[in-house]
Every structure is written in C-alpha cells, then in structure tokens.
C-alpha cells in the first residue's frame, strides 16, 4: 500500500542511524523503513494465510473430524458389544435357571419314585408280616387246643390210675366229666 512512497521520498541514506551505527531516536519512528516493513509484512501474512488455508487448516480439520468419527464409532461399537454382553449374560442366567429347574424336577421325580417303591415294599412287608402273624397265631391256637386236649387226657388217665390205686373201679364217664369240670374251671 505504501510501496511508492519510499522511492519518491527517500533522499537521505542514513537519516535514522548515526555514523557509529547507533539509532537516532526511536527506530520505530523512522519513516524510511516503513515501506520495507509493510511490504514484507504483507508478503509474510499472505504466505502464512496461503499455507494455512491450503495445507494446514484443511489437514487439521480433517484429522479432528476423523478422530471425532473414530471416537464416535468406537463408542458405538463398545455400546453394541456391551449390549451383546448383556444378552449373553441374560442367556447364561436363563440357561442356568432352566438347568436348576430341570435338576429340581428330576430330583423330585426320583424322590417320588423312590417313595412309591418304598411304600409298595413297606405295604408288601406289612402284608407278609400280617400273614405270618396270622399263621403263627393259628399254629399257637392249634397247639393250645391240642395241649388242652392232652391235659384232659393225661388228667383223666392220672385220675383213673389214682382211683384204681385206691382200689376202686373207676367210672370212666364220671372221671371224664370231673376232669372236664376242672380243666374248664
């Protein structure tokens, strides 16, 4: 913008620097150098802008977008995996519960079967015991009856013998009646 001013108005070579090379006043206020600095500043800013807009900014924006995309994708896939983990966990829990239920059914059935068998065996055993008891009771009563009969016979014989020893003739009918009387009593 101030390109033309120096060529027109640059008569003094060393207006801002003394013979020893030191600054006269503030170098910042030396108008002789303005055009040079402004020109190179504009070139520099244009160069920086060119580099930024053509190379750096699109690249960084792309990298940031790509990273954002990657992060979003990864988070989404992580969530999906989490969902699958939950599903697998639920399936596992379900199969575990099923297995428990099945095991319970089997054990219940087995128990019932065993109980039924046991009951059957027990009742059979009871029946056998009752049978045996009845048999035994019958045998005992038979034995008792024969024993009573034998006692009567023996008693009649003994009484007849005693009567005979006393020198009497035993009346068989009377003895038998007496024995029967006694045994009954």
């Amino acid at each position, binding site marked *: 913008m101030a390109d033309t001013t120096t060529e027109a108005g640059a008569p003094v070579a060393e207006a801002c620097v003394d013979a020893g090379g030191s600054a006269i006043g503030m*170098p910042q206020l030396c108008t002789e150098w303005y055009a040079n600095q*402004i020109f*190179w*500043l504009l070139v520099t800013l244009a160069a920086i802008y060119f580099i930024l807009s053509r*190379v750096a*900014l699109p690249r960084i924006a792309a990298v*940031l977008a790509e990273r954002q995309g*990657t992060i979003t994708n990864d988070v989404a896939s992580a969530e999906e995996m989490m969902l699958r983990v939950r599903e697998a966990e639920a399936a596992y829990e379900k199969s575990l519960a099923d297995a428990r239920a099945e095991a319970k059914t089997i054990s219940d059935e087995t128990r019932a079967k065993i109980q039924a068998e046991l009951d059957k065996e027990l009742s059979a055993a009871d029946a056998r015991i009752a049978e045996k008891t009845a048999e035994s009771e019958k045998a005992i009563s038979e034995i008792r009856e024969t024993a009573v009969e034998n006692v009567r016979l023996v008693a009649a014989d003994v009484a007849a013998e005693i009567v005979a020893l006393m020198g009497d003739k035993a009346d068989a009918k009377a003895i038998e009646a007496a024995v029967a009387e006694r045994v009954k009593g």
Partner: protein
Amino acid sequence: MATETEYAEGGSGLVFHPLDQFIVKPLFGDGQVYWYTVTNATLWMALSVLGIMGLLVLGTRGAGTVPSRLQSMAEMTYGFIYKMVEDVSGKDAVRFFPYIFTLFLFILFANVLGLIPTAFTPTTHIAVTAVMALGVFLTVTILGFVLHGGTFLKLFWVSSAPLALRPILAVIELISYMVRPVSHSVRLAGAITAGHAVMKVFAAFAASALIAPLAIGGMVAIYALELLVAFIQAYVFTILTCVYLKDALHPHH
C-alpha cells in the same frame, strides 16, 4: 536483543544503546533500505513463516488419529484459536478464523523468535502492528456497514442508557471506536519494545563486574517475563480482534 554493548572509548563508563536492536538494516551489504530490500525484518518474518510451517505443516504430516507431540501442539493451537473465535465472536465468525489464526500465529512466532539473542523482532515496530491493527479496523468497519447498513451505527447509540445521556455516550463510543486501531497496535509494539529495551539495559549493566550478578539475574527474570508477554500479547491482539469482529457481526449491545 543482542548484547553488543561496548565500553565507550577510554573505558570511562557504560554506553547504552537499548534501541539499536530495532534498527532495520539490509541483509546483504549496506545502503539504502528500499521497500523491496531484503532486510533483517524480512529474515525474521521469513523465519516465523518457517516456524509456522514447521508446526502446522510438518507437525501434522502424519495426520494420525493418535497425534504425535508436534501434531498435538498444532491441534491445540488450532483448537485454542478456533474456540476463541467461536466463543467471542459467535458461530458465524468461524469463516474469519483463517485470517485471525494467521494474525495470531504471525504475532506469536515473531514475538517468541524475537527472544532469541541477536534476533530482530518485527512486532516491536509500530509500522508492522499498525498495518495489522488497521487491517482489522477497516475490515470490521466495512463488514459492519456491509452486513447491517446504517443500523451498524446503532453500535454507538446505547439504547439501554437514559435518553439524555445517549448523545454524550455516542460521542464517547465513537471516540473509543476510532482509537481502537491505535491502542490495538501500540499495545503490542509497546509491550514487546519495552521488554526488549529493558533486557538490553540489564545487559549493559552486566558489563560492570560489580553489579553483573544482579544484572544477569535480572535479565533471567525479565527474559522469563518476556516469554510470558510474548504469548500474552499474541493472545490479547487476537482476542481483541475477535471482540471487534463481534461488534461488526452483532452490533447490538
């Protein structure tokens, strides 16, 4: 900020030339500085361009989803200024981001590279900062009138103030608006110039054995401060640009 302080002939005392570091001189031979002459200003501006290329082009060469250190720095710089433009000037100001980023990077690299001993610092020169500040001022003013026409002038008419005060406020607002390019440019050039001059004065004192430790310690401290100032001034220039741009895009108080 070279330390070429010399004893005066006869060794009677210290000679201060704290402003010599700001002299613009031709890079090849000596003679007249024409507008096209390649000077030390050209050299250090070119170095700042190279620095910017190194950070933003070479640094992002890999374009990796997982960034390298340099790429991470480039992305952080990008994000910092992008967010500043977005937050301060509004979402519709994002189209001006490349211009603002250009200004920020140039000022930042010129400031930081200028802290290298014997370097020339372009941002110490009012000619440089004034061109940038005037560029911002003219862009913002023209943009304001193009976008809003005459209603852009409402920027100076503080409708929230009592009616009687409004003309006075309008004058004050107008003056402060017109002074913007001056304060914008002088702030940057002044801050950097002052720091560099102070360092040079400390350097001159370091030539005297008696106070050299103090002078050198002072230089170290000032250097650290100047490093901070280099960043802060680039930041301040940029954020003010964003604030002015906001006025042009949304001229309602």
